[in-house]
């Protein structure tokens, strides 16, 4: 509390008190602008070009200013332009469970036609999304699903299980099918991460080819570079027999690769997972990482935009078997659990990584 008494409290003259109040008010105003500037940056709405009648589609990613998200949103913008919707991007600067709720409320008040969301938490956003749908909005979940009752369809990168399996396959090949491995995930309640992790666990338990592999632990780097870096360090010091790390998140795998490339463990500990080619290129070339996987994130955003349009104009309702055309990407079909699959995962190695730029 003494921090508040730094100036000469009792003898403060009226003039100085006024000055203090003014300065305080200025500071508060500055804080407010700071927040506002942060909260709605990279807003890519096309500035009223539609003349007011264009339908609106809003993308609400897990977190703004995330390189992976930017590629996804780039695709979303392309799709939205193609269908003639006015698009905007809003979202929090940190990937926490509750931070998306206020953005959903605002979109509802604005009467947005289609809300495309990647949920940081499947349930936390539920009530807000329900209100949005009651107000007439169509809700498309993409990248990371909400609980099914809160959205119309879910656009999934790939078949979730394929993503899990490809990472295990890459790991098993490199460690010769035997040894301790660990998982470096994002946040502890990220839907997509947890889905892949449980698929990996199920596969490890049921597939005899993997019976020599022992998953020792899962740690969470919260999609933060520094935290993921130190979690990697911690894994290696806590589990001296560790053979490999699977990191199904782009931030995690890059941070882990950075640590491995600068430590004694380079080349001794296998690292696979999901990464962006541009972030991983240096580590593939210096031998820290042999292979990793991902899908084309831009297609994810694009398909989500087309799915939103198809819902809005009634082409699909989310029922299994519904079909719609996603521009150049061709016809997509709604599968079980209102899920639309974009395509198969891609594996990146030193041989093909230079063909990709995202």
């Amino acid at each position, binding site marked *: 509390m*003494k*921090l*508040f008494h*730094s*100036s*000469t409290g009792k003898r403060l003259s009226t003039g*100085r008190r006024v*000055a*203090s109040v003014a*300065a*305080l008010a*200025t*500071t*508060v105003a*500055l*804080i407010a*602008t*700071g*927040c*506002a*500037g*942060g909260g709605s*940056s*990279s807003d890519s709405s096309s500035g009223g070009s539609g003349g007011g009648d264009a339908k609106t589609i809003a993308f609400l990613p897990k977190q*703004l*200013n*995330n*390189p992976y*998200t*930017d590629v996804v949103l780039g695709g979303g913008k392309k799709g939205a332009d193609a269908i003639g919707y006015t698009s905007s991007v809003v979202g929090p*600067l*940190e990937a926490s469970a509750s931070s998306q709720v206020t953005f959903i409320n605002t979109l509802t008040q604005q009467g947005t036609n289609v809300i495309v969301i990647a949920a940081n938490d499947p349930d936390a956003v539920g009530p807000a999304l329900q209100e949005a749908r009651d107000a007439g909005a169509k809700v498309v979940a993409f990248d990371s699903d909400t609980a099914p009752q809160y959205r119309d369809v879910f656009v999934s990168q790939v078949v979730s299980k394929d993503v899990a399996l490809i990472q295990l396959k890459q790991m098993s090949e490199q460690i010769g099918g035997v040894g301790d491995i660990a998982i470096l995930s994002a946040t502890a309640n990220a839907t997509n991460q947890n889905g892949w992790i449980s698929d990996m666990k199920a596969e490890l338990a049921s597939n005899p080819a993997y019976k020599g592999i022992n998953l020792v*632990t899962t*740690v*969470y780097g919260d999609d*933060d*570079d*520094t935290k993921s*870096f*130190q*979690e990697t*360090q*911690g894994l290696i*010091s*806590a589990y*001296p027999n560790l053979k490999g790390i699977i990191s199904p998140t782009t*931030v995690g795998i*890059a*941070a882990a*690769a*950075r640590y491995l490339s*600068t*430590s*004694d*463990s380079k080349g001794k500990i296998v690292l696979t997972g999901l990464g962006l080619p*541009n*972030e991983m*290129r*240096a*580590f593939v070339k210096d031998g820290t990482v042999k292979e990793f996987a991902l899908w084309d994130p831009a297609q994810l955003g694009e398909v989500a935009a087309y799915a939103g349009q198809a819902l809005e104009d009634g082409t699909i309702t989310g029922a299994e078997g519904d079909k719609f055309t996603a521009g150049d990407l061709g016809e997509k079909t709604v599968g079980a659990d209102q899920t639309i699959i974009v395509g198969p995962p891609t594996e990146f190695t030193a041989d093909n990584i230079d063909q990709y730029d995202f």
Partner: protein
Amino acid sequence: MTLSTKPNPAGAGAPARSGAAATDRNASAFSTFVRAREIPVASALVVLVVITAVINSQFLNPQGVKDLLLNATILIIMAAGQSLVIITRNVDLSVGSVLGLVAFGTGSLFNAFPNIPIVVVFLIGMVFGAVLGGINGLLVTAAKVPALVITLGTLYIFRGVLNAWAGGTQYFAGDRPVSFSDLSTETVIGFPIITLIAVFVVVAVAIFMHAVRSGRDLYAIGSDPDAALLFGIPVSRRVLYAFVANGVLTGLAGVLYASRFNSVGATTGDGLELNVVAAAVVGGVAIAGGSGTVYGAAIGALLLTTITSALTAVRVDKFWQQAIVGLLILASIIVDRVASIRRARKLRVSEARDV
């Protein structure tokens, strides 16, 4: 006559009643030593490292030691800077955002001028930090609003500017010269180069605080700003310089961050300010100002980062780790409070006797 010849704490407890002058001097030197706020922290650090090394023999292998030092380096530099500000009874909460701006600036510099000399990058980073620290210092001293509020404001402003500047752009270690990254991987007699930089910074600042008049002034200002003003100390100027010096050190930390970690972008350094303040407080720098040392803050930083690594190495759940760090902060504040109450009581007793 050395401290180790007087291990009996009972002697330290009763220096005032002792008759012999020589014993008195010894005892008071010893009691100063035991009462020093840094001692409990340093002891905790040693105990922690020893216990962890016994449980997990990997903890102190060469790579493990290197990681411990590297993890602490950036926090040590920032805690040293922060302690300058806290000692004047202020605080700078914007340091996480300042670090982010400088780190991203470093990435941008190497991106725009791939052949720029590394020394120039360090200089630009520190000047950039000094400017941002200067903004804080000017606002605090000119507006006479508590630093807590001002720097909370600049925390968001600087972060907002960084978000607008960086957007989704990130610069990666691969974009920077290898010799720059090498600073945080190569070692000289077992110490990583950037850790040696941190040690140099702490020693330099500690000497300044101990031996230079304007350094002593900072303690006087923190103890009683009104008295310091009456005494003729240029309070505003000193406080401003403390903020600028903190900015310079945070700028240095920002450049080193870009050397150490893979990516720099909009979220770099987010939330770091609380770790920095915690390190200073745990290291015995009183949050109310006027006391504490730079090397105490540095030890606090080392303890906080080491405890995280140690708890991970013995496989303690991550969520407990945060609780333990919180306990440490409370414990150090309680120790500090108890010490000052005892000191006050002792002063009252001796004054009463003199009457």
